[in-house]
């Protein structure tokens, strides 16, 4: 494949055609923060934290999906870029619990984002859902990166147990008519837990340990629940 030459932060870069701006920037050591991006998922470019300024473009460009072009001039930390990244991080912090999202916390430091920037903001506070023996769902920590929905669907498992509820700021991840997970098509593969970046999805045993249970208690509790759930799942599948 032919190479494309462009300028990133004043530095000339030559990369194969088809490379994303994010990859091209990484190749010269320019760090671009990305929240929703995951190498195993189809990129949706929805967190917009990876935006960069491209000369001649009306708006900022999501570098995780935008491909390099010949003679492109890219700025990864221009004032417009910095304002957007900082404000997005501040808004995220005003909406959800980021206490178990160390990557995002690091970005907030890097961009001098003030977690208290938006006083009196309505937070997304949602009661924790503990409806199955394998994992708990704490959507107060959910940043709507979509990864769990994607791996449950055609990015990995083809199980289609979860999707979205609501719209806009009220969006959450939900099941068909809000059914508990064992009553859905969920196969408890754990892919969603594996890609969750904020601790919103967490193995049940880990959560129980955090609640102060001993390992023996955790084992007893989850074993009992697992047996019951397997029976329920089998019954439901036959119905």
């Amino acid at each position, binding site marked *: 494949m032919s190479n494309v030459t462009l300028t990133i932060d004043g530095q000339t870069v030559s990369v194969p055609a088809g490379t994303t701006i994010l990859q091209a920037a990484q190749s010269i050591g320019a760090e671009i923060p990305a*929240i929703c991006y995951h190498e195993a998922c189809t990129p*949706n*470019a*929805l*967190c*917009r*934290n990876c*935006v960069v300024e491209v000369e001649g473009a009306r*708006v*900022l460009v*999501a570098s995780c*999906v935008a491909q390099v072009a010949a003679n492109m001039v890219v700025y990864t930390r221009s004032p*417009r870029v910095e*304002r*957007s990244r*900082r*404000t*997005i991080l*501040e*808004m*995220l912090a*005003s*909406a959800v619990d980021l206490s178990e999202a160390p990557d995002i916390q690091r970005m907030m430091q890097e961009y001098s984002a003030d977690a208290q*920037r*938006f*006083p*009196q*903001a*309505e937070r997304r506070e949602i009661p924790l859902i503990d409806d199955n023996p394998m994992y708990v769902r704490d959507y107060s920590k959910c*940043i*709507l990166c979509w990864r769990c929905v994607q791996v449950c*669907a055609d990015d990995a498992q083809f199980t*289609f*147990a*979860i*999707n*979205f*509820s*609501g*719209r*806009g*700021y*009220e*969006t959450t991840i*939900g*099941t*068909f*008519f809000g059914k508990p997970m064992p*009553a*859905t*098509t969920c196969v408890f593969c754990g892919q969603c837990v594996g890609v969750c970046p904020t601790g919103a999805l967490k193995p049940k045993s880990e959560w129980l340990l955090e609640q102060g249970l001993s390992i023996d208690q955790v084992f007893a509790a989850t074993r009992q629940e697992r047996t019951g759930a397997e029976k329920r799942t089998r019954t*439901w599948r036959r*119905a």
Partner: protein
Amino acid sequence: MSDYANSAYDPAPLQGVLDQLAPQGRAALLPALQAAQALYGHLPEAATAEIGRALKVPLAEIHGVIEFYSLLYTQPKGKTVLHVCTDPACALRGGEQVLAALCRRLGVQPGETTPDGAYTVEGAPCLGLCDHAPAIWMGQKAIGRVDLQSVDDILQGRGDHPITACYGETKYLIGRCGKGRATTLAEYEADGGYAGLRRALSLSPAEVIAEVKASGLVGRGGAAFPTGIKWEGAAQASGQPKYVVCNADESEPGTFKDRVLMEEDPHLVLEGLLIAGYAIGAARGYIYVRGEYPAAYQAMANAVEEARQAGYIGEDVLGSGYGIQIELRLGAGAYICGEETALFESIEGKRGFPRLKPPSPTTHGLFGKPTVINNVETLANAPRILLQGAARYRQLGTEKSPGVKLFCLSGDVARPGLYEVPFGVSLRHLLFDLAGGVSQGRRLQAVLFGGAAGAFATPDQLDVEMSFEGLRSAGLPLGSGVVMALDETRDLRMILTGLARFFAHESCGKCYPCQIGTQRQYEILRRVADGEALPGDAERLADVGWTMADASICGLGQTAASAVLSALKLWPELFEAGNGKL
């Protein structure tokens, strides 16, 4: 499936609908959900599961779709749902008071249903009845200029049936509008209708495109993209089949032009769509009408049927050898579906999330195929361009903005209505000479220009030229042609709060800047309007606004703060802490 047992649910009538729709698969999801809701009053879980099986859509995804659209309900609603518009044009004339009075009379809160199941009362986003504010939409009926003295009449569906007054200096687009009913095919033909399509069919598709390019026609939905170039792109794209789509999801607050064109002159819109279809070689066309416009949908459906019988639609249009089928879709309550790629997703039976661009619709549009999507008013221009030729079309308007434009005048204006003028007249001419100026003899404070996604013009800008170039140099967006007058007594912070509420309600929630930004913007403006601004709120609004403008995925987020940013620049004192409520 005993899990879905529901005693009140009779699956038989739905089965007939699903047998018909099943071959379309997921693309029939919205029509199937709408049919089920018409049968059962809401969407019972069992019916929804049945639809999923018939159309082969995962249940979680169907639920996600239902949850996305405001007009799809999983819970029983009243037999009559009263949608009370509370967006700016109606709010100026007491829309909130109408909502409160209806709720009081029925003893419910907004969103609730009366215990007897007769009524549900809901606040509604702009219903496109701004010239008849305050307005209500209930089932198949709309009522304008609601009189609070007669709340019982409203409940009975009695009231002013809104007929939009059509004014202006030319009558190219709205010559057959203003009479309160649809022009029939016979009337349309007698008035020279479908001659533009006949001329188009006598030319090659490339010649049609050349004519449209030469006319200088640009899109009237808000983005002002050159129509001929769009058609050329789809015509030259390699995929098959190709689609042509009429974007009739008019939802921009203050806009009602497309509703009037569809309700009163549906064949003009249809003729434009057929010309576009021929130009790009589309095998199928879609007309996507917003869910709040059942009358426009019906008028377009009737016109499609008339045209089909007359041979304008079918496998061999007027013996030309060109074949096209036209399908109608009714939206389900989502402003975002006016965004072209979100509209495609909606037709495909998905949540109306905008797609990433590139690729553009001309190569990867509906069902991933080359697609032309044009606004109603844009298409309505095509017949005359084909009939009279580009040169004559360009005799009106300005060099850079040829042709005529529809403007929707509402708010504090003496003669609200739909106005057709050549591009290039001044705002003063439109607002004062033609529309009679500010109502009740008051002074003009500002004009909201372009819609919710618009900006404010001040009285010292009255001589601005109403053309793309004239407005651009004045820093004003033409948008969808909204001119909403605001008199000296209005608190602009209330208007801004209303706009912000609209965007917070209509954001799809996909990208962070808009998902959270529209909510934060609304919260801040609410306290600003209450006279309780916090120190730093102006900077917060600017940061949120510029972040949405710069970093959002689609046009909704990119313009959700444009009116706020324009007000911040014009009247910074409005946003200062300690500036009390008016």
